[in-house]
């Protein structure tokens, strides 16, 4: 059963997935933030696990990761923490981390423990199609979806290949670059998103560089929803929960 796909499609609306860094503000802040995001209308929540060398991330998420590491955040602690209150979280939880923390934990143990903690999927930005075999079998056995990414530089033929056996949703990267706010998207974004949508049987969500309600509306015209990271982290930093709520609810009006 594809829990993520089901949760993202059953309401028949555009979806919003916020990203937060586990352990930013201390691991004790995680539960409170997850519940706040769930109550604010998040359709699923992406939880970053910090890594010392996050090459796909821009300054905001890099700094959040360093703060989380300074608080002593580890995969083990995050999994144990979430497992304790998993029944209170109804929306799907998706991990985003890099290959090395998963390898160091032990891939099979990671898949089992993540499933036990109620995690539905995992995004590993430095694990392209060519290297997926490393995790695929244990992930499948534990019903943990491996969320794939497509980007503006991915040729059409490759997009079709990635979409053919995608699970959960497809993460469409809206910029040629790293995570973080942008003022403007490139001209080929609409065509790109529409193409991904046309070949995908799972929802297509746009992320990287989406930070305002206007941008949410703009990209949602061509896909099924958005993932917002750096902006959510900034708003938690500023303790601006009202603004965050408004941003999450911006998908309801589309």
């Amino acid at each position, binding site marked *: 059963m594809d829990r993520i796909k089901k949760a993202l499609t059953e309401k028949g609306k555009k979806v919003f997935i916020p990203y937060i860094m586990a352990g930013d503000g201390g691991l004790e802040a995680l539960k409170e933030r997850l519940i706040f995001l769930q109550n604010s209308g998040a359709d699923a929540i992406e939880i970053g696990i910090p890594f010392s060398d996050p090459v796909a991330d821009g300054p905001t998420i890099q700094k959040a990761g360093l703060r989380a590491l300074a608080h002593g955040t580890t995969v083990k602690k995050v999994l144990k923490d979430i497992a304790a209150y998993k029944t209170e979280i109804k929306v799907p939880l998706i991990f985003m981390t890099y290959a090395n*923390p998963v390898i160091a934990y032990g891939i099979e143990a990671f898949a089992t423990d993540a499933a036990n903690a109620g995690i539905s999927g995992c995004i590993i*930005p430095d694990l392209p199609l060519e290297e997926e075999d490393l995790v695929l079998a244990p992930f499948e056995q534990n019903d943990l979806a491996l969320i794939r990414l497509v980007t503006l530089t991915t040729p059409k033929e490759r997009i079709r290949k990635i979409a053919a056996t995608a699970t959960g949703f497809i993460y469409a990267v809206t910029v040629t670059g790293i995570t973080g706010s942008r003022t403007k998207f490139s001209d080929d974004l609409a065509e790109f998103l529409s193409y991904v949508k046309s070949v995908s049987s799972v929802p297509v969500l746009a992320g990287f560089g989406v930070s305002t309600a206007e941008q949410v509306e703009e990209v949602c015209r061509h896909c099924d929803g958005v993932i917002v990271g750096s902006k959510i982290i900034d708003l938690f930093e500023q303790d601006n929960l009202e603004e965050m709520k408004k941003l999450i609810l911006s998908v309801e009006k589309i």
Partner: protein
Amino acid sequence: MTTKAYNLPDEKGHFGNYGGRFVPETLMEAVLELEKEYNRAMIDKDFHTELQKLMKDYVGRETPLYLAGNLTEHSGGAKIYLKREDLNHTGAHKINNTVGQALLAVRMGKRKIVAETGAGQHGVATATVCALLKLECVIFMGKEDIRRQQLNVFRMELLGAKVVSVDAGSGTLKDAVNEALRYWVTNVRDTHYILGSVMGPHPFPKMVRDFQSVIGKETKQQFFEKEGKLPDALVACIGGGSNSIGLFYPFIEDESVAIYGVEAAGLGLETDKHAASLTKGKPGVLHGAMMYLLQDEDGQIQEAHSISAGLDYPGIGPEHSHLHDINRVHYESVTDEEALDAFQLLSKLEGIIPALESAHAIAYAVKLAAGMSKEENIVVCLSGRGDKDVQTIQARIGGQE
């Protein structure tokens, strides 16, 4: 395991369990394109002609294989030959790779180059070839390395490159690679990344090895002309591992040749201030490849330490990781102190001031030679010259006296 018919990497870029292409999707197309272009270039006569012409007339190859008589006498055992990569244009082996990659970039129509640098040798070699071929050049360099290698920063700027200081992390080579990768992700459409070592995603470890293996090919022929046989042992220092693989690769199938890679033990393997990725690390993924890494139990990459900026890297190329596992190459380590002694020893005995990186290889070779017979021979890769390190040494020796 025998290496009689050694033919790695496989087509996915794996050396046994190591290597691969662990990069963000945005880079995959560029990495696949590079592989195709590299394969095309390898069977293109014109490419080889152009490369060889530059290697001879611009870089100054071939470099001499020099019998270090005084050092041999001092060691009291095997004869020590030095492969003089320090005599290349720009003073190190790094240019063997940058010339090749820059020619590939031009073939791919990419006129902008990004690179990382640790000690600055790769940055200088990249900036140099970019000046020659009229390519735009951005070099990322850790803040700490900029402090340690001021002269090389100025050199790169003289050559027309833009040097960007990297503040993140420990401000050394690892962090410079992170930033160079992020820059490449953002500018991949018109930019080629000239990686400086046998690391990163496939095809870099293979391609850099192939460009650097000119070291070993020349050595084999020169040694045969002098001694009429194969050397008994090879020694080279290892940070990411490019000069060493360049020397070793043409000898991998010659199982009578003992091969030694020398890592930086920094303040000592018993401390946490070293760069001995193979001796003290475990396999993991960083900068696009599976390889041995210095990391904690949660998979966070640890900072490496060495007195030589060029060895200050917490990983070791995937092919070295594999050659370690199959026991074809012996990986040893040498401390900052031992390297400093060797630095002075070679300067005094042979009138050759080695790079601090290469001094690690010298230190090990002297120990190794002492335990071998006078009929045996060792070839050491003298990967670079020490001009860039003179200030560091002066401060260090001055402080001691």
